[in-house]
């Protein structure tokens, strides 16, 4: 399989202080300039194979959504490179990104905020077709939009309605149809089911997998729910404070988790069997602030197995098996 996306050492950060006045502070009788920066993504590398599903999973603030938005260049990357379908798009301008965006679409988390409330749903789907010249006329575009909406489960008599007339699950279906409108090769789905009820979540997950089988595109799937990730992914990366700490094939990572954080995540999941929390030892403490990142391994303060070197240097990438790597001093 060839790669549709290669991300290398991607970095993203946000300045919290804006302008000189905000940054100047009095410290010990001297004026100092103090820039406050949130380091959201700290040099992550991964590949997405053509026709497969790669997931980034982690808790809030780990940088998974920021990674997604940086890859599609809704925010400019601060470092590293993004190679999409053989082209290095890291420094592409907005104009250069336009043809790329036809190939790379996004499904958003909140189905209430991501659809234009003043547009009929058929027009929401037809607009990108006309804009990207996938269809030559509005009429053709609307015809194909209707067909696409039917495919995701919106009936013919509903296509001229407005977004507010649909339920959350139906709106997410419309969001998926919009992403598919321009026949993309690659879809980034940022928490597409976390706002939905469980019975609807199952419908949407099945739909996403069916469509992938039918159209053969690839997914970058962003989620915090490990059970959902396990269900949908081929490969995955576990993120903590803007770093990938463990990455590999679904089978290997779930059957043989190596990083203490991955173990802790798996231990923390409430299970239907009802006996996971009872026997597990969930980790103590909370995620440190991304403003003052700890030195060394970012997890060492919460890690039950921390070694002296863990607070000094970030661990190297270590291969555990075929398609399974971990960043942890326990294995170097």
């Amino acid at each position, binding site marked *: 399989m060839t790669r549709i996306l290669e991300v290398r050492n991607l970095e993203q950060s946000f300045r919290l202080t804006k302008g000189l006045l905000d940054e100047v502070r009095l410290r010990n009788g001297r004026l100092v300039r103090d820039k406050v920066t949130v380091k959201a993504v700290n040099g992550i590398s991964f590949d997405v194979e053509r026709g497969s599903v790669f997931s980034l999973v982690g*808790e*809030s603030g780990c940088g998974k959504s920021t990674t997604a938005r940086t890859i599609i260049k809704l925010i400019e990357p601060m470092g590293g490179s993004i190679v999409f379908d053989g082209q290095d798009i890291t420094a592409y301008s907005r104009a250069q990104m336009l043809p790329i965006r036809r190939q790379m679409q996004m499904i958003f988390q909140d189905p209430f905020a991501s659809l234009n409330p003043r547009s009929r749903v058929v027009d929401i789907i037809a607009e990108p077709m006309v804009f990207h010249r996938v269809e030559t006329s509005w009429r053709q575009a609307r015809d194909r939009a209707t067909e696409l909406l039917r495919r995701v489960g919106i009936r013919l008599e509903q296509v001229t309605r407005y977004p507010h007339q649909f*339920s959350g*699950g*139906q709106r997410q279906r419309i969001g998926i149809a919009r992403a598919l409108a321009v026949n993309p090769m690659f879809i980034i789905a940022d928490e597409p089911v976390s706002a939905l*009820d*469980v*019975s*609807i*979540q*199952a*419908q949407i*997950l*099945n739909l996403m*997998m069916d469509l992938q089988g039918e159209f053969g595109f690839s997914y970058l799937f962003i989620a*915090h*729910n*490990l*059970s*959902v990730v*396990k*269900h949908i992914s081929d490969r995955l990366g576990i993120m903590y404070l803007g770093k990938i700490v463990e990455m590999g094939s679904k089978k290997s990572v*779930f059957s043989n988790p190596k990083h203490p954080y991955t173990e*802790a*995540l*798996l*231990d*923390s*999941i*409430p*299970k*239907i*069997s*009802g*006996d*996971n*929390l*009872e026997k*597990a030892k*969930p*980790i*103590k403490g*909370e*995620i440190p602030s991304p403003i003052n990142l700890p030195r060394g391994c970012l997890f060492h303060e919460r890690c039950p197995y921390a070694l002296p070197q863990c607070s000094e240097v970030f661990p190297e990438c270590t291969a555990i098996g075929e398609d399974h790597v971990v960043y942890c001093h326990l294995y170097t």
Partner: protein
Amino acid sequence: MSSRKKILEVRNLKTYFHTHKGVVKAVDSVSFDLEQGEILGIVGESGGGKSVTGFSIIRLIEEPGRIEGGEILFKGTDLLKQPESYLTSIRGKEISMVFQDPMTSLNPVYTIGRQLEEVLIIHEKLTREQRQRRCLELLQTVGIPNAEGRLNNYPHQFSGGMRQRVIIATALAGRPDLIIADEPTTALDVTIQAQILKLMKRLSRETHCALILITHDLAVISELTDRMNVMYCGKIVESGYTQDIINRPAHPYTQGLLSSIPDIDEDRPRLNTIPGIVPNMFELPEGCKFYDRCPYCQDICRDQEPLMTRVRDRHEVACFFALANEDQP
């Protein structure tokens, strides 16, 4: 377990919302009871009526909502017949509540020490020193590190998980017999959720305080509760011991919910789904509320509403064709 004292009996509770579009029967003839120290789960999807049930118990229903009928017997006293002043005296004392959002349920302009102390000032007769000591104990009980220093902190200085611990401490302050927790961990990350759930279970066991846990997450219910009620469109459709229901669901809705959750221990190529969506609460069907999504639906389901019937010990279900799956998950 059944030898224990019943502390709460809810009989035919009806809470309706009178909106300009019509009447929403958010809770419709709901009955259940709760023993001392027991953990009861109420599970269902959005709009099922589980939160309204919780709020109805301590009569925190606001216009256009109204409790239309039924009985809520708390330690033998019908709360629906008592004046508002009586409710004020037991809220936060004998029954307290933990809400979903730890960001909005603390007052941002007071220190958390002050907010904890307020409960004690209202409900207990203690000296200043005794109150201080009790506040400190409470924070230590819920596992807040450096509790002494933290008493003078404001809510914004705490993370989400720590705030939820503070709220649990506030709920425990009056030594209640019942805590109603409405989605207490939904806003939290999974590692923090695990910490809070373990804490709540430990505290409920230690203090013999009964707990009603309202959540949409069946896995959380399974991890924490002794018994559970499954709600759909304002009705309890199944009720029983949690592990009994998880292992042998009798209502098609419960079965559908269970099989639509991706399970981390199991590989399935496809998830089973419940077809369709929850019906419009303004136009609920006559018979069984679930009939148009149900794979086992017959004519009788459309015309008649099924009543709760016993399938086995303390396991009841409202379905004409209760599933007889023996030891089948």
